[in-house]
């Protein structure tokens, strides 16, 4: 097996696993039962999506996808924090 085949298959598989993780998170998100479960599901969706981006960058050997991942990692939590805060206090900003 050549290095590129290994990479191709291995990273493809890793990406597939991450997408599968996304699917599981989405399942929780859709299933609930409570709003907190859904938010948790969305947060996990974001997380695994971010990792999928990193793996995609590895598959293509390109650093061009890094910023998308960094943004998700640094400020992706803003959306879920807002949701959680809404749940906790009934409003996002007092």
């Amino acid at each position, binding site marked *: 097996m050549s290095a590129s085949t290994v990479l191709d298959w291995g990273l493809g598989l890793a990406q597939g696993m991450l997408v599968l993780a996304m699917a599981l998170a989405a399942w929780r998100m859709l299933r609930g039962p409570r709003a907190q479960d859904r938010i948790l599901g969305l947060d996990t969706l974001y997380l695994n999506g971010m990792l999928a981006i990193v793996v995609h960058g590895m598959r293509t050997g*390109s650093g061009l996808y890094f910023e998308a991942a960094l943004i998700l990692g640094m400020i992706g939590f803003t959306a879920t924090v807002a949701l959680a805060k809404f749940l906790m206090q009934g409003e996002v900003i007092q």
Partner: protein
Amino acid sequence: MEIVLSAGIGILAASGVWLMLRPRTFQVALGLSLLSYAVNLFIFAMGRLTVGAPPVLKTGPETVSVDDPVPQALVLTALVISFALTALFLVVLLAARGVTGNDHVDGREPHHAEPTPEKPHP
């Protein structure tokens, strides 16, 4: 990939259209969001699909085969505009909810009479 993306666009669009036809303002706002996703992906699809070839040139003089940058630029413009307008729609729906007391797109429940100065919203 093409069939997957088409199906995705279709489902987003169908969900969006369905929501846009609903009577509650918030439904319409979300429908607008979904429909914008669908349309943005549609515009993007007009440049055909490529994987792993962003239109960012390497530091060499050679021209490489990359994805069509034009639809990407168009999507970016459309994206910003639809973001702005979604925000606007949201605020208008809030304002409407405030002044009419209900969240129907027409500003009144279908089986309620049109409000008059003498008989304001319930």
